[in-house]
């Protein structure tokens, strides 16, 4: 954890996260027709849902960066010299990443709720989202952030190069998955971004049930972490 708090990257990511979420919510708050903003599930999905989507992405990026930044700056070498058992290094990173991802997920959804309510007020639409939905949105968003951070860590440990990792993950969440969900919904609902949104209670009619979403996203995290640990144990750090 000291690694995450001793540089400016983590607070920088947090500020960027809040800014992007507020922007996305505000744009959709003004752009969407009033008719599609009345129901609580519409408000949650089309407006505030961006907090979960972007929160997940940033949590995943934070997880990936916790490995790729060590490759980029070479600090992975002293890290491994201090802890030659590489499995322990990856496990410790997974714990720290999950903690940061939890915070990012919560921050993203909370910012979206705040910005979303402001936008609805400005449009003169009543906020219809209930307390239970908010609670699930925040808690599910936080949990999804934690799992996404572990997924990202595994990807970072396998790919290693920072820029391709960041670009690929961002493109996946914002473009590939959106296309997949539209063109092949049966497959798209099982993609990690959609599972994270399911966990936060978005689109309950088309996405997986939250519990199933959490379970499957957990499976993604476990698989990604296993691949990352294997790659870290096998390969040289030259």
């Amino acid at each position, binding site marked *: 954890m000291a690694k995450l708090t001793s540089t400016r990257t983590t607070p920088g990511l947090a500020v960027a996260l809040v800014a992007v979420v507020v922007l996305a919510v505000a744009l959709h708050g003004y752009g969407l027709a009033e008719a599609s903003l009345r129901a609580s599930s519409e408000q949650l999905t089309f407006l505030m849902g961006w907090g979960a989507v972007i929160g997940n992405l940033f949590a995943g990026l934070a997880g990936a960066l916790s490995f790729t930044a060590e490759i980029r700056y070479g600090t992975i070498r002293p890290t491994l010299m201090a802890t*030659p058992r590489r499995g322990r290094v990856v496990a410790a990173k997974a714990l720290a990443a999950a903690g940061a991802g939890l915070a990012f997920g919560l921050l993203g959804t909370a910012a979206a709720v705040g910005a979303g309510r402001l936008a609805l007020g400005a449009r003169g639409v009543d906020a219809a989202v209930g307390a239970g939905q908010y609670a699930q949105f925040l808690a599910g968003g936080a949990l999804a952030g934690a799992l996404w951070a572990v997924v990202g860590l595994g990807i970072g440990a396998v790919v290693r190069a920072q820029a391709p990792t960041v670009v690929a993950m961002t493109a996946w969440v914002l473009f590939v998955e959106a296309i997949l969900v539209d063109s092949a919904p049966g497959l798209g609902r099982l993609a990690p971004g959609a599972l994270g949104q399911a966990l936060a209670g978005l689109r309950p009619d088309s996405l997986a049930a939250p519990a199933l979403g959490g379970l499957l996203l957990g499976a993604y995290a476990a698989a990604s972490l296993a691949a990352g640990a294997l790659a870290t144990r096998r390969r040289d750090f030259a």
Partner: protein
Amino acid sequence: MGVTEPPPAGDAAAVRGLTKRYGDQVAVDNVTFSLRPGTVTGLLGPNGAGKTTTLRVLLGLAEPTAGEALVHGRRYADLDEPWRRVGAVLESGDFHPGRSGRDHLRVLALAAGLAPGRVEEVLALVGLAAAGARRVRGYSLGMRQRLGLAAALLGDPGLLVLDEPANGLDPAGVRWLRSLLRGFAARGGAVLVSSHVLAEVAQSVDRVVVIDGGRVVADTPVAALGGRSLEDVYLELTASARS
């Protein structure tokens, strides 16, 4: 900064029959040498001779293709508390530019299970106490070398492994480094210094291991050079190995 326990009997480190291949490229070819307590050994060779690869295998960062590299009789990865056994400064620097020098050492002390109080001690030891709060991106090359040395000394190890440690040091810094290494060896520590700059090495090492094209072409005490300059011997050896 003395060695806290009596130096273990035998070699501080031993490299035996070490070979490292990257695809078809042979970086290190059947290299054998050992490091004894109380001596400073220079690992010399032209750029690309295999010095850094040898050090990385010794430090457990890369797997040998054949042979072995042992520290106190064990593979680096099998050492308990390796940071208390071996201190290393790699040429690549390996700092996060956005982290302060002090935080860099704190992270390492935490990871290595060392007392946090050591951080201030080693910062003072290398003359960076006043610069500890600054981010590494603002450090000169010489300051980065000093920070690397501070990190290597954190665990009060019995073996120092330094890759091109004099790069970026001014003449006063080189002299300071030399006396630090001599003092370290005088207290029973073993030092391995890799370098392609002979002048800085000639005055501070007891023994030289010269490698060229991945192979050891000389392994001799400096005293046994019989008055010939290290430069003459080195150039002769690395030239004849190539022809």
